[in-house]
């Protein structure tokens, strides 16, 4: 119970730091974000296959973008870690995998939903965040493994199937079930 409160405070805390960055360009808040998230971003980028030095450089760049584009951050739309995930993923696909279509396609998709629809209030988002976190922790082992291979290693369904000796259809249905489990809480509140 108390751990749920701590998690909720986490997400709210980071969103608050980010608001300070975007409203007053507060460097101390930014460096608190940097100290917490830079090692995590770097680990993520290394997992995707970047050599240490490249992961380090891209991490610096990802955090710099957070600073540069702080005014675009909308706490009601996404948590800070989701925003950073997108930035780091996009940098990796653009710079390391060199897929020039990726970033423009992402930008175009993002602009489609920009008109301010009344999204969930930040408070609701934190409750969802906690709920989602609990659901991730409770995933069955195989589903958790496939989710991690997808997100942390960017493995395709076929690569996962080959590596684990699973039929392709099983990989897909397993990932599908994992997603549906993780979605339940959100749907309930919507």
């Amino acid at each position, binding site marked *: 119970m108390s751990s749920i409160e701590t998690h909720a405070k986490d997400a709210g805390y980071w969103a608050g730091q980010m608001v300070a960055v975007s409203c007053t360009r507060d460097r101390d808040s930014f460096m608190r974000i940097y100290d917490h998230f830079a090692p*995590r971003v770097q*680990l993520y980028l290394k997992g995707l296959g970047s050599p240490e030095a490249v992961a380090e450089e891209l991490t610096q760049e990802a955090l710099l973008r957070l600073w540069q584009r702080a005014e675009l951050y909308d706490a009601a739309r996404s948590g800070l*870690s989701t925003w950073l*995930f997108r930035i780091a993923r996009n940098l990796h696909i653009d710079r390391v995998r060199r897929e020039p279509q990726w970033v423009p396609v992402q930008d175009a*998709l993002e602009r489609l939903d920009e008109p301010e629809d009344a999204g969930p209030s930040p408070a609701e988002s934190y409750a969802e965040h906690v709920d989602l976190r609990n659901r991730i922790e409770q995933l069955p082992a195989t589903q958790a493994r496939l*989710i991690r291979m*997808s997100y942390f290693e960017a493995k395709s369904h076929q690569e996962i199937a080959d590596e684990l000796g699973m039929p*392709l259809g099983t990989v*897909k249905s397993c990932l599908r079930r994992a997603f549906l489990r993780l979605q339940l809480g959100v749907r309930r509140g919507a």
Partner: protein
Amino acid sequence: MTPRHHLNEATLVSFAAGALSPEMTAVAATHLEACRDCRDRLAHAERIGGLLLGQQQAAELDAAKRGRLRREMLDRLDESTQSRHDGTIQALSPDVSPGDPDGLPQPLRAYFGPTWSALRWRWVAPGVHMIRAAHTSGDTLLLLKIAPGKSMPVHSHQGTELTQILQGAYDDALGHFSPGDAADLDNETEHQPITAPGAPCICVAAMDAPLRFPGWLARKLQPLVGL
């Protein structure tokens, strides 16, 4: 148009994770542009990514290195504040105005050019025209135009086939597919699309393994189609 056939959740997860090939990404993004429902589910898939990122147990860097990176970061904050709007928004194809009915869906333009009118269709079989994207990463990406009221051969797939309907319509055992709909199929699906009467059915399809047609038709068609 509100699509009735959507991306599989497994496809959305992989899209969010950056784990689809560029060709699958192009087709999925074409669907996402047309489908608010899938965009909402994609946002959720990205939230999962954000949570996993935040949950990682980061190993401690040694203090000297950490200090150097921190100082470097602080220096860069000064140098770059004034250039913060640089390059944030790039137009995909400035040559076609948004909303121009001749414009191809944005995610397909890099492969097939910006407009419908400039497409150069190739005849492959009676009632079937095709354009195969060059410069792909290994997966196949096709535009297909099939005459109305035409029955396609029964086929199955060795891998994944992701199709987005752009114009016209077809029916198969899975239902009626019209513009905006996605058919997200794997190797367990065998189907025989029949195009609807009226206009030709145009769709874009990405596949990660060759199609399989049974029997004599395979021998006849596959060399023609070049799959």
